[in-house]
């Protein structure tokens, strides 16, 4: 069964690669037809991104609470080796955003530092922040990004996933 799974994965990546070239042409056509104000966010292929920490351990920012129950912030850090496939936009200028969609269990904020290829920043769930602006000179944008998560401890009681996406305005 293992080898079968591996074979399926290979086919998926192959299909994705073809998709990118094919889709780039389609997007170009769409931009032609649509007015400039009707920008559409394209979710970028970041399937090469790896988590260096499989689980982010959250800890109380302050071990003791406040008198008013407002000191419930929990924090945790995690590092990812980010790899974004930008081959379809080679030799073009691009603005790439990190997006944190609204998701369960509730609002959270995150800040991050980078090794310099991407921009450091911060954002709240339900928003996005610019992480790259400029010419695409390589097929992949790669950087090591360390995130710090800030979560209301009153909202979380068990492990939960937080999903990010890199997007580009068409």
């Amino acid at each position, binding site marked *: 069964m293992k080898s079968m799974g591996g074979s399926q994965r290979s086919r*998926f990546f*192959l*299909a*994705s*690669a*073809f*998709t*990118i070239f*094919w*889709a780039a042409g*389609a997007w170009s056509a769409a931009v032609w037809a649509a007015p400039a104000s009707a920008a559409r966010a394209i*979710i*970028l*292929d*970041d*399937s090469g*991104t790896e*988590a260096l920490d*499989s*689980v*982010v*351990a*959250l*800890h*109380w920012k*302050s*071990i*003791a*609470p*406040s*008198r*008013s*129950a407002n*000191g*419930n912030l*929990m924090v*945790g850090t*995690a590092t*990812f080796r*980010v790899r974004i496939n930008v081959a379809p936009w080679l030799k073009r200028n691009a603005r790439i955003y990190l997006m944190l969609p609204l998701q369960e269990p509730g609002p959270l904020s995150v800040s991050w530092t980078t090794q310099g290829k991407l921009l450091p920043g911060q954002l709240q769930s339900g928003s996005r922040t610019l992480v790259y602006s400029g010419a695409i000179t390589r097929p992949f944008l790669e950087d090591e990004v360390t*995130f710090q*998560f800030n*979560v209301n*401890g*009153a*909202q*979380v*009681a*068990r*492990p*939960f*996933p*937080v*999903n*990010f*996406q*890199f997007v580009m305005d068409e």
Partner: protein
Amino acid sequence: MQLRQRILGAVCIAACGSAWGFTATLNPASPQTIYLQVGVGSFTNDYIYGGQPERNATINSVSVSVAATALGNGTAQTMTTNSTATQSYWDGYTYCSVPGQVYIGGFFRTTGASTSPAQVSATVPAALTDASGDSLPFSRISWTSSGNGDSGSEIFPGGTFVNGGTQTVGTMSSNTWNESCWTFSLANNGIPAAGSYSGTVLYTMTAP
């Protein structure tokens, strides 16, 4: 063949493109903490300056010597403590006054929207006893509750000890700092045998 692969790819971007993105799994790790202080306690610094709670094994006493001329006159005798705890470890505020008051405070940390408060209970012996075997019921000791700058009800209200058993002396909501100052007194009714009577009350905090 190449065309077939391209078509397959086109289908995939429509169906699979939104699956891109990466996921971090956040785990509220070992977040539960409880802290109870009756009398003196220990923090590395005030909480608002990053202080962390520490263990303190000190057992403080509350006592009173009743003058022979006042014995049994019906006037409650205010007790004093050897506790030196006057300041709140939350911010250093001088909250209690010694030797008249005993500080009691604490908190419990837990994740999620907890609805069950932590209970603080006192385990009380049946009586105070002296070396001769004489006894005084523990219910002769009562306390009132206050705190510098406080108004309204206290989180650890006043009460009277039971004669042997466990009684609740306060509750704490999760993720809040709670504190009060207790002033103990001895009901001065009747004339017991002369002696030095003592007993130990154990305070316990139980968090859900």
